[in-house]
C-alpha cells in the first residue's frame, strides 16, 4: 500500500470523514494559492488535491476551466505545479494528490513524471481522461515510484467495470457524484446513498465523493455514507478576485472549516448509528 492508501485507511479507521480541498496550481496567483493551502492546513486538512492546469479540461465545468486558463496565462507549468506540491508537503506537512490531464503527463513522459512526483513527495495522481482500461502504461512507473494512481468511478460505471476498478485502484476511490462536469452538479444525485453502497460492495478502498460537492449540507450528506468529500469549484469560486496570501488563507480556512465541521458532526452521528 502506498502512502496515500495508508493515510486514507488510517483516517477511516479513526472515524474521520475528511474534506479534501482542491486548488488549481497558480490560481488566483502563486501567493494566494499558497495561502489557500495554508488555510486548508489551518482548517485541519491532512489531504489536499492540487490541479495541474491544462488548456482543454473536458471533465471540468466553467469555474475550473477559468481557473486553469488564468493560471496558464500567469505561467503555470507541470514542473511549477510539482514545485508547489513539494512546498505543501515540506512546509505544511500536507499529503498531496495531483490532478492532471493526460497530455502534459505524456509530454513529460510517464516515468519522468512518476519520478518527479516521487521527488516532490506527491502521494497520488488523478488523471480524469485516463480510464482504467488505458492506464496500465502509467500505473506501472507510478507504482514503482510509490505514487498511487487514483481511479474515478461514475454513476454510469456498471458492475463489470467496478470489478476492474477494484482490481487496479489505489489510495482511495474517487466517486464522481453525478454524470457531468466539475462544479455544476446538484452536489449529489437523489440516489447518492445507493450509489455509494453499490461501490462499497465492490471495493474495499475508502470512498471519496467529488464533482459538485460545495455546501455544508452536501458535505454532511456525503459524510453520512462515504469516507470523504472533495471540494473544488466551490472553493475556487471563493478565491476568485483574491490577490493576497492572507485573504486566501482566511477565506479557505473559514469555508473548509465550515464544511469539515458539518462532515464531522454528520460522521459522528453516522458512527453512533453504526454502533447502536
Amino acid at each position: 500500500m502506498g502512502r496515500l492508501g495508508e493515510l486514507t485507511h488510517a483516517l477511516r479507521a479513526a472515524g474521520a470523514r475528511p474534506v479534501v480541498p482542491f486548488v488549481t496550481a497558480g490560481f488566483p496567483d502563486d501567493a494566494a494559492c499558497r495561502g489557500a493551502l495554508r488555510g486548508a492546513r489551518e482548517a485541519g486538512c491532512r489531504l489536499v488535491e492540487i490541479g495541474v492546469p491544462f488548456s482543454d479540461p473536458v471533465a471540468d465545468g466553467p469555474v475550473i476551466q477559468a481557473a486553469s486558463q488564468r493560471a496558464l496565462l500567469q505561467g503555470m507549468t507541470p514542473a511549477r505545479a510539482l514545485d508547489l506540491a513539494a512546498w505543501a508537503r515540506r512546509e505544511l506537512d500536507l499529503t498531496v494528490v495531483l490532478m492532471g490531464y493526460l497530455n502534459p503527463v505524456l509530454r513529460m513522459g510517464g516515468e519522468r513524471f512518476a519520478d518527479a512526483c516521487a521527488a516532490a513527495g506527491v502521494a497520488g495522481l488523478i488523471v480524469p481522461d485516463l480510464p482504467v482500461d488505458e492506464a496500465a502504461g502509467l500505473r506501472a512507473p507510478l507504482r514503482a515510484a510509490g505514487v498511487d494512481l487514483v481511479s474515478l468511478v461514475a454513476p454510469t460505471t456498471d458492475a463489470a467495470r467496478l470489478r476492474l476498478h477494484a482490481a487496479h485502484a489505489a489510495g482511495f476511490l474517487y466517486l464522481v457524484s453525478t454524470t457531468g462536469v466539475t462544479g455544476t452538479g446538484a452536489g449529489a444525485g437523489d440516489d447518492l446513498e445507493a450509489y455509494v453502497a453499490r461501490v462499497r460492495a465492490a471495493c474495499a478502498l475508502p470512498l471519496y465523493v467529488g464533482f459538485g460537492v460545495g455546501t455544508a449540507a452536501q458535505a454532511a450528506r456525503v459524510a453520512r455514507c462515504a469516507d470523504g468529500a472533495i471540494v473544488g469549484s466551490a472553493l475556487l469560486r471563493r478565491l476568485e478576485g483574491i490577490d493576497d496570501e492572507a485573504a486566501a488563507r482566511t477565506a479557505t480556512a473559514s469555508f473548509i472549516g465550515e464544511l469539515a465541521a458539518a462532515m464531522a458532526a454528520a460522521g459522528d452521528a453516522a458512527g453512533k448509528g453504526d454502533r447502536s
Partner: protein
Amino acid sequence: MTMPAANAAPGRFGPYGGQYVPETLMPCLRELEAVWLAARADPAFLAELAALQADYSGRPTPLYRARRFEAACGARARVWLKREDLNHTGAHKINNCLGQVLLAQRMGKARLIAETGAGQHGVATATVAALAGLRCTVYMGEVDMRRQEPNVRRMRLLGAEVVPVLSGARTLKDATSEAIRDWVTNVADSHYIIGSTVGPHPYPTMVRDFQAVIGIEARRQVLEKEGRLPDAAIACVGGGSNAAGLFAGFVDDPVALYGVEAGGGAQGHSAALALGSPGVLHGSLSYLLQDEHGQVVPAHSIAAGLDYPGVGPEHSFLKDTGRVTYDKVDDDEALAAFGDLCRLEGIIPALESSHALAFCRRLLGDEAACAKLVATRAAGPDAGPLVVVVNLSGRGDKDMHGDAGDQANGGAHGQAR
C-alpha cells in the same frame, strides 16, 4: 452499401487512437461500439442507409472532369473532381450523419449533440435530427459563428439550438471540448455525432466507414471513365474525414495518396501532421499542435473546418507508415484555387476543399514531380496523361461573405476590394 474490413486491433492505428475520456463516458462508448458492430453486419441497417444516401442525399455524387481547371494546372493530367459538394446540405458531412442518426435511433436516444467549425457538420446534424424527429444542440465557436454566419441561420431554421462557445480561441477545438462536456452531462439520453475521424474509439473507425462511400464510389467511377485506377488522389485534412473516406477506396491500390493540411498564414497554421507531435486531445492519441509543456496550441486557418490543432489517429498512422503523403497549403494559395474553380469551372468550392485544389495545382505545376509520378505509377510510363482524383468535399456558398467572397469578386486576392 459495403463497409471496409474492420481494423486489426479495434481502436488502434499502430500506436494511435484509444479511448482517453472520463469514466462517465466509457459504458456509452462500449454500447456505441457494440451497436455499430451489429449494424455494420446487418443487411437491414445497410439497406436503410443506402436508401437514405440515394433518395435523401442524392448519391452517388458525380465524378466530374474539370477540363479548364486541368488546363490551368499545366495540362499534365486529367483531373476528376469527386462532387461531394452536390450532396444534400452541400458537403460530405451528411454521409456520417445519416449513418450515426440511425445508430442513435437504435440506441433509443432522444437528442443529438454536435460540434462544428465551418458549420457543414452542424447543418448535416441539424438536418438528420429534423429527419428523425430528434432534438439537436450544436456547439460552435463564436469566431466561427461570425465567419460562417449563413450556416448558423441554416441550423436554426432546421430547428437546432446553436450554442456559442466563448472559451479558448472560440473555434472548432473549443466547440469540441464543450460538446464533450454536454455529452458527459447528458449521456443517458443524448448521442454525440462527432463530425470527423477524431475522438475516442469507435468514432475514428466508424466515421471513416461511413465516409468510405466517397472512395468506393470514386474508384468505381474512375474505372468506368478512364478504364484504369487514378495515379493520385488528393483530399484536404482537418480532422480528416473526407480524406479518410476518399483514401478508403484506394488505400489497397497502387495509387499515390495526398492529404493536404491548412498551412494558414501570419496568424498560425493547422498543420498537425506536418508540424505537430503525438499527444492526447479529445479522446485519442494522434499528432497534435502543442507546446513543450503539453498544452494545446491554438490552430489557425482561413477555412473554419480545418482550423483544428489535432487530426484523426488513422492519418497519424498513415503518415508514419508513409502510405499517404501529407503536405500543407497556406491561406493565400487556397484562396487563389477557390477563385480558379469559380471562374474556370463555374463551381464554388468550400475553402476547405480549396486546399486540395491548390495542392493539385501545385503538384501538376511541378514538372519533376509529375515526371516521377509517371515513371513510378502502376499503370506504367506509357499509360497517357496522369489521372488525378480530387475530393471536392463541400460547396463554398457559406464562404461568400468573407475573404473568399472578396477574392472571387476582386480577381487576385486583395485587389479591388
